[in-house]
């Protein structure tokens, strides 16, 4: 490593320490406090408490069900998503561009909206329970696998594929021996994320699973918020942190594998015709329609079918308070994350470890972070800045990940060229690197804002009556009796979906990069 590179790395780490310190204070400390609480409880009540989640049949069932539903959802998403990803990369058809764009929809749809959308389409066939929860998980995560697979298959080199064919490989053998190994790292990395999201997801599990099929996250929330049973909640959280930590380590390892494609060496896209590609395209679209686009359409229909009285009821004083709070918290949280995320993204390009640290808030359960904050700073929980910092914490990885990826893609030779043309390291960054990063930064901000608009888990745990947001308002409506409240919940969900899409579109309007972020709310 040259001294100038070393200087660059040191400067990066200096910039990176600020967001890392923020993550430390707002994620690691609360989690450590949670762990400490568990430890205290174990000391107080004996070591048997630590093993209680495995000894108690009910608690063991919650943990195993969490892992089982995450595994089943990941497996199904892989089985459906990988072929769809391949089809979308290799076949052209009318409207393909729109389908690819629409794959981003689930990333910007708030959790509660997703849950209600899945209920709107599938609720008449399935009761609250495992099927509905897995359908909800697929709504969010199928697109993640499809996008991962698309990225992987798109990086297959056309010349290498041609070489394989000329050496006697059939299309299937060429796929198995060349295309799949190339795409595998991206697909496995996406699968790790899907597993983590399903494992630590809260909103979907709460609404679609119900108490009978509560995951560990829902159980922790119930124990903290309703039963005030901190000992069990703490040890349960400890075990879930351990399981998530192992998967995060695998994800960090996989996400560092990069596939290089020769420039201009892309496998050509073929036109799908009857008898040649049309069936695979049709099947792919049908799956996407049933699992991703259909639920959203069903939700809109439900909202439009609601009576004028329901619309009036939904958009009462509470809704306006919730809208104002939602926008205020989003603006404050995302503004903070815009700066910290960019700083972290810059620092993260230099080290995989740094990048993994930035991912921590994304792959840690918001319920656990909020629970940790409750234990850590109970005296400050009436302060708005606590909620804003928690929002920023959740938004940082959404900004940092695309920034880090964009910085990594800037050719080091460009910086060298700028330096030999007289630019100082700072000027080289400002004139060469940053302009390349801006579109990804904007895209990250758009994702962060759309996600924060619908934030649910942290808001629910830290919420105060005057901090009502659109998400918590919808949750309240669902808990109130009567058809009018139920209809009002459909109306507000559709309104929240429209707001998320509007925020995303407004911020993303000038960003022309491919979507980079693999993250969304839980």
């Amino acid at each position, binding site marked *: *490593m*040259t*001294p*100038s590179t070393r200087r660059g790395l040191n400067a990066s780490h200096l910039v990176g320490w600020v967001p890392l310190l923020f993550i430390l204070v707002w994620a690691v400390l609360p989690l450590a406090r949670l762990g400490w609480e568990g430890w205290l409880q174990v000391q107080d009540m004996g070591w048997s408490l630590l093993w209680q989640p495995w000894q108690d049949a009910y608690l063991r069932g919650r943990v195993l069900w969490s892992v089982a539903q995450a595994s089943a959802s990941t497996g199904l998403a892989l089985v459906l998503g990988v072929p769809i990803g391949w089809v979308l990369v290799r076949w052209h058809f009318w409207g393909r561009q729109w389908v690819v764009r629409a794959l981003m929809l689930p990333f910007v749809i708030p959790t509660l909206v997703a849950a209600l959308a899945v209920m709107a389409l599938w609720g008449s066939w399935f009761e609250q329970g495992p099927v509905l929860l897995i359908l909800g998980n697929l709504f969010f995560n199928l697109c993640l696998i499809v996008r991962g697979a698309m990225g992987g298959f798109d990086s297959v080199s056309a010349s290498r594929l041609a070489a394989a064919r000329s050496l006697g490989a059939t299309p299937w053998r060429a796929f198995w021996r060349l295309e799949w190994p190339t795409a595998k790292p991206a697909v496995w990395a996406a699968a790790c994320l899907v597993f983590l999201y399903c494992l630590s997801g809260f909103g979907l599990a709460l609404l679609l699973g119900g108490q009978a099929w509560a995951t560990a996250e829902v159980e922790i929330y119930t124990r903290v918020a309703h039963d005030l049973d901190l000992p069990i909640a703490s040890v349960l959280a400890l075990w879930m942190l351990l399981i998530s930590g192992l998967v995060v380590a695998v994800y960090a390892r996989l996400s560092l594998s990069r596939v290089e494609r020769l420039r201009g060496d892309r496998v050509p896209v073929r036109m799908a015709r009857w008898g040649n590609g049309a069936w695979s395209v049709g099947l792919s679209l049908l799956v996407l329609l049933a699992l991703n686009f259909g639920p959203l359409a069903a939700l809109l229909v439900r909202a439009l079918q609601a009576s004028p009285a329901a619309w009036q009821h939904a958009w009462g004083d509470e809704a306006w308070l919730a809208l104002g709070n939602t926008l205020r918290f989003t603006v404050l949280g995302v503004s903070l994350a815009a700066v910290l995320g960019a700083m972290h993204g810059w620092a993260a390009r230099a080290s995989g470890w740094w990048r993994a640290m930035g991912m921590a808030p994304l792959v840690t359960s918001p319920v656990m972070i909020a629970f940790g904050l409750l234990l850590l700073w109970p005296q400050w929980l009436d302060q708005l800045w606590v909620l804003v910092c928690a929002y920023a914490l959740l938004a940082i990885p959404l900004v940092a990940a695309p920034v880090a990826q964009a910085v990594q893609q800037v*050719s080091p*030779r*460009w910086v*060298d*060229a*700028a*330096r*030999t*043309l*007289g*630019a*100082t390291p700072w*000027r080289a960054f400002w*004139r*060469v690197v940053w*302009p*390349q990063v801006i579109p990804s930064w904007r895209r990250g901000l758009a994702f962060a804002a759309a996600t924060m608009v619908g934030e649910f888990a942290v808001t629910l745990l830290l919420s105060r009556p005057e901090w009502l947001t659109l998400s918590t308002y919808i949750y309240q409506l669902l808990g109130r009796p009567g058809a009018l409240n139920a209809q009002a919940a459909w109306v507000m969900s559709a309104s929240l979906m429209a707001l998320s899409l509007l925020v995303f579109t407004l911020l993303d309007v000038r960003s022309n990069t491919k979507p980079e972020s693999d993250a969304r709310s839980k």
Partner: protein
Amino acid sequence: MMLELRGVTHRWSDTAGQAQGWIAKDLNWQVSRGETVALLGSSGSGKSTLLRMIAGLEQPQQGDVLWADEVITHLAPERRQFALMFQDFALFSHLSVQDNVAFGLREQGLGKAAARRQAVEALTSMGLANRADASVWSLSGGEQQRVALARAWVTRPKLLLLDEPFSALDADRRAQLRDEFKTWIRAHDMTCILVTHDEADARAMAERAWRLQDARISQLW
């Protein structure tokens, strides 16, 4: 002598930072003012690394780089006023052709309008006036090459460093551009080091040539 490498010793390291093969062992080399010299060597011989050391982008583990008898080993690249033209041209894709050429001028403190004016003049003399506002992606290989040369040359560097400048071109374009480059360099009385693995390039452009082999340098002509 304008440029001198004195007792330069360097080993390349792998990604883990472990020292591997030698690039230079107690290497001494001199280049006179106004001459074009070629540095030949096979792939992986370390000639590009040597060029990066001269540019200040890397530093030798031992020995010194001197310019006009002054040690510049630890001088930052932007303060050396040497321009390096990269093998892949390293044109900035977010800037237009003229803004690429104006980049170095802006770093020298010239205003935007004045820098652009000079850039267009440089492009005109390269036969690329009509491409000033174009995106660099829309240029052919030969055009990109000329833009890269214009960008390097327009700042009036003390030393022009060319790293395999013709490797991406077909034979016809290669011969034509070699002649163009040679004429340019001579016309502007520039000191130039050409790194190449192709002896024909070296013979066409350079007055003197060396070969870097097994970390030692030997004069060919």
